[in-house]
């Protein structure tokens, strides 16, 4: 395992020390609870947005804390959901009187831990908490009898869009409804060229031959649905875009936010190349791109690969997307 780390057990806490040191103007970190907060603290009357999950997906979620996006992010161990204590502490700390929205990616662990936190927070302090669970990964069959689709790329777009809505002063119910609507309007599909190595595990989660790739991976080094022979970018783009298009039921004339995300170990030059392929496919399908995002936003440690997320975007969605945001990971208009 080749990583810029000290003791594998300290990776998350030391990275949080680095985040705090690098962004003292914008972030405050509770190192005991491993929570990243806005430096400015909660705003009276604004709905608080709390997210969190396993670490190893940086900049998500800690890098999305700041004006126009999250109020707090709970960092779990690498690829392990945070624990209810963290979520309870974060929930209390960001409550500005208008309630708190939990943004949870659909993984059994995340869902159960956030659920326990919400139960405990409700019993305890009386903070009003609502939750939205993102589940946009079309690689996974959605069914009442399974864990359901995973939450992946849409989570980033949702945190931005609902963050803007909360900033405008919308109520908890409105924020929760918007979040549900954004989650329904987006789908993702990912692939990996290489595995990643969880620091405390010390070796790659899966092995891929030099001429193989995994299609339909999640963001935790889980193997994907299918192992396939390595293919040109053009073909890979088709394997990602087509299931998303058909699952979303997009048709000619629809507008989207198109998001090509790197898994952490793929350089930007390849992501732009992929974005070209994706935009060609969208053009071919008559889908117009209202806004785009290309880069490493929801990653899987040093995994090489990418995911494509499409979010159906009406004017209001685009307006909220364009609203100012000032976080370490996403910034414009501020």
């Amino acid at each position: 395992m080749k990583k810029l780390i000290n003791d594998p057990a300290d990776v998350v806490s030391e990275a949080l020390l680095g985040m705090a040191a690098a962004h003292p103007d914008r972030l405050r970190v509770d190192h005991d609870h491993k929570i990243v907060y806005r430096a400015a603290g909660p705003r009276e009357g604004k709905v608080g947005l709390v997210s969190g999950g396993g670490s190893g997906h940086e900049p998500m979620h800690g890098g999305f804390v700041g004006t126009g996006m999250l109020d707090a992010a709970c960092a779990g161990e690498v690829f392990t959901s945070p624990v209810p204590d963290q979520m309870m502490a974060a929930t209390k700390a960001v409550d500005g009187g208008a309630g708190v929205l939990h943004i949870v990616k659909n993984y059994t662990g995340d869902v159960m831990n956030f659920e326990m936190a919400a139960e405990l927070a409700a019993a305890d302090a009386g903070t009003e908490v609502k939750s939205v669970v993102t589940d946009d990964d079309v690689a996974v069959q959605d069914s009442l009898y399974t864990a359901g689709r995973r939450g992946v790329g849409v989570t980033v777009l949702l945190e931005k869009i609902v963050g803007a809505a909360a900033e405008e002063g919308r109520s908890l119910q409105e924020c929760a409804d918007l979040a549900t609507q954004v989650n329904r309007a987006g789908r993702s599909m990912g692939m990996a060229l290489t595995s990643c190595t969880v620091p405390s595990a010390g070796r790659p989660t899966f092995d891929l031959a030099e001429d193989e790739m995994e299609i339909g991976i999640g963001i935790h080094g889980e193997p994907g649905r299918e192992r396939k022979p390595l293919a040109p970018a053009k073909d890979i783009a088709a394997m990602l875009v087509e299931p998303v298009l058909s699952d979303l039921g997009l048709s000619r004339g629809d507008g989207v936010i198109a998001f090509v995300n790197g898994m952490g170990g793929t350089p930007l030059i390849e992501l732009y190349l992929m974005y070209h392929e994706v935009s060609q496919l969208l053009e071919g399908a008559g889908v117009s791109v209202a806004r785009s995002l290309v880069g490493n936003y929801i990653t899987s440690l040093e995994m090489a690969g990418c995911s494509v997320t499409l979010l159906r975007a009406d004017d209001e969605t685009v307006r909220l997307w364009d609203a100012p945001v000032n976080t370490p990971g996403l910034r414009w208009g501020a």
Partner: protein
Amino acid sequence: MADLQSFQGWMADYAEVVKEQADYLTDLDRAIGDADHGINMARGTVKVAALAEAEDFASSEAYLKKVGMTLVSTVGGASGPLYGTFFLRLAGPLAGVADAGVEEVGAALRAGVDGILARGKAELEDKTMYDAWAPALDAYATATADGADLRGALEAAAAASARGRDDTLDLVARKGRASYLGERSRGHIDPGATSTTLLLESAARTLA
């Protein structure tokens, strides 16, 4: 009969077992999950093992509640809330019981597993830890009906749990992270079922 001290002995023993088997549990999770089950469990059981030294407990119930809270607060992932809830609920039927016999421990185990079901909503053959718990409860009940003592009932439960664990090999996962793999999850033993069997084997060694 199981008293506070035997429950503490159970947790001390289990912490040792998890430490030894952590890499194995993680490897199982590498095949169909995210390669952290052993790490998660070890993070929690180390803290649990330290409880008895740090604090005096008034009762088995208080102790097991604290075990549950500690697991919830340290393990994370899917197994944290599941094992945490198990111990929180396990404590209930032991309220006011200083020395638990085969009946009381049986009621406690059932309550604990109900907690796992309530939290995780797993069904039989979903390829989860429940597949190691369900046959264990049945075997425990049968053994009790057949007049077994606590040790005998726990040994029957552990043995049945091991069979349930082994039977997860051929299942396609429908809950938890392994479910994302669909057919590819077949051919691997479920990590949580494995840590469950270890927990019951440890109980059979240390309780009573």
